[in-house]
């Protein structure tokens, strides 16, 4: 028996849903037009708020991109007086690349509700013990699932990430039943639990895993190792956080909470809307959130949308698992990484931009290796000097990305150059 958190919305007849979406879209475009950024953008594109009367008019709105958000940092896209905002979250990245998203209490509530829908779709009830091993803080993973778990009424374990031994201890002692973390951390936990011989003391029944791309093979592997059902979840800070979409018992894609977020698939080259079933870039529009109301935000994530009858009973549109990115962003252990950030660190440490980033997934855990060509200026005839330099790069990468990289200094001209251009990124992960 399928359970729902808000069946009126999750299972609404399509026409009814369209009407709600249209009304909310109209209202939020008017609301956004009060922000100078949107007023300028719409005026420049010759669009008036009254032109947007239903979801069919969505294509008339111009797109916004991450660059717009960065330019607007920090308050340029704030849609309410600061006194009405109660929270910020922020994307991973450098100071220059950071995006700060604002929330009113109502925005937080609807975000939490979206996560509650995900937990309930994964079989969660108030009797469950929800073990949240996403990072807490500026990252939306922890706060989102934490809020959703509260809405459901489950006992919430705000574990945050790291300290695997403590994770396992709480998991066994407090009988955690639903695990929320990145799929790679779930796989790592599974290995660690087996190594410790504790699998029979684990009470998990489900997992909600997101913030990075993963394969069907990885899902089946985690499911068999942890003896659970594993569900995908999708979201991004700019739009709200996890819970923009979530998987149901059918496990064939994620239902988008489209009473709050409108979705389109576009051709990333032309910007044209593509029909259901075609692969392209996902564009999202917030129709309920007030503090950070993004309209036609280009996510850079590539996927497919489908609107078919789902065996779970939900009528919400479904998005496929992520199939890639339209930019060079890498997602490593759930952290967004732009190669340019790594390059900045390398140059700031005194090296030249001759480097290679190698990402791999060993035992389901992402590894980040950075090879940097040695230069005459950085060379010393003492090992400790060179090791100090290497450590400086590792430390600066850690503070910029929140990831520990393995840095290797290599001989000059040793990095593969194809047609004179260095191959900067090697992603060996099979997703």
């Amino acid at each position: 028996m399928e359970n729902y958190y808000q069946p009126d919305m999750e299972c609404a007849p399509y026409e009814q849903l369209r009407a709600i979406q249209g009304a909310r879209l109209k209202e939020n475009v008017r609301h956004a037009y009060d922000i100078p950024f949107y007023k300028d953008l719409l005026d420049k594109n010759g669009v008036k708020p009254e032109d947007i009367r239903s979801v069919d008019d969505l294509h008339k709105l111009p797109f916004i991109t991450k660059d717009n958000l960065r330019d607007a940092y920090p308050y340029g896209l704030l849609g309410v007086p600061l006194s009405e905002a109660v929270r910020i979250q922020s994307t991973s990245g450098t100071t220059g690349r950071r995006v700060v998203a604002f929330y009113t209490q109502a925005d937080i509530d609807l975000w939490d509700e979206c996560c509650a829908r995900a937990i309930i779709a994964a079989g969660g009830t108030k009797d469950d013990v929800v073990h949240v091993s996403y990072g807490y803080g500026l990252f939306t993973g922890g706060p989102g699932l934490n809020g959703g778990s509260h809405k459901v009424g489950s006992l919430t374990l705000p574990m945050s990430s790291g300290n695997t031994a403590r994770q396992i201890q709480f998991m066994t002692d407090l009988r955690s039943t639903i695990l929320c973390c990145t799929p790679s951390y779930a796989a790592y936990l599974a290995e660690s639990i087996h190594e410790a011989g504790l699998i029979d003391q684990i009470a998990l029944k489900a997992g909600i895993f997101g913030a990075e791309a993963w394969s069907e093979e990885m899902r089946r592997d985690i499911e068999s190792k942890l003896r659970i059902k594993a569900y995908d979840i999708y979201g991004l800070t700019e739009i709200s956080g996890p819970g923009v979409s979530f998987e149901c018992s059918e496990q064939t894609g994620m239902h988008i909470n489209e009473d709050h977020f409108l979705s389109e698939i576009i051709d990333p080259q032309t910007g044209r809307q593509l029909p259901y079933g075609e692969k392209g870039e996902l564009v999202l529009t917030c129709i309920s959130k007030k503090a950070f109301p993004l309209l036609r935000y280009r996510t850079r994530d590539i996927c497919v949308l489908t609107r078919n009858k789902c065996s779970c009973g939900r009528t919400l549109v479904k998005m496929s698992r992520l199939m890639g990115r339209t930019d060079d962003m890498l997602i490593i252990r759930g952290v967004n990484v732009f190669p340019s950030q790594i390059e900045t660190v390398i140059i700031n440490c005194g090296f030249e931009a001759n480097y290679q980033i190698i990402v791999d997934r060993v035992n389901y855990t992402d590894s980040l290796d950075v090879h940097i060509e040695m230069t005459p200026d950085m060379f010393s005839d003492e090992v400790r000097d060179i090791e100090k330099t290497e450590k400086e790069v590792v430390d600066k990468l850690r503070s910029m990305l929140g990831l520990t990289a393995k840095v290797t200094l290599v001989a000059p001209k040793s990095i593969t150059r194809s047609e004179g251009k260095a191959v900067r990124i090697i992603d060996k992960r099979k997703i």
Partner: protein
Amino acid sequence: MILKQLSVFVENKLGKLVDVVEALGQEGIDIRALSIADTSDFGILRVIVSGPDDVAALLREQGYIVRLTNVLAVSLPDAPGSLAKVLRALSDENINVEYTYAFVSHNEDKAYVVIKVENNEHAMQVLAKHGVLLADEEDIYK
């Protein structure tokens, strides 16, 4: 005497060390002394050769990263305890030895070592005070 030592960056990978040493051999360069400091991913090959400036230029042409470093070459009686005596003298004067390695010696009574310290002048004064001889050109390049 003060010698110019060549330090070469070498990746800690199969075949990398032999590549450099082979390059020297092909140019007819005789390695008089050698040491390697290594970590798991790289090594520093330190060599004493005659005509270090020319050899450095030659290696750089071949794409190697080379640094010339001034080190001390000391001549010792080839007898137990003589190196200890030198190192003790330096230690007593608070001179830190960053590294040291031995030469190939053709002299039956003498041993030669390279000593790397922060301040060569100071170390030379200390060594002179203790009657330690520096190696001369002939000792090294003959």
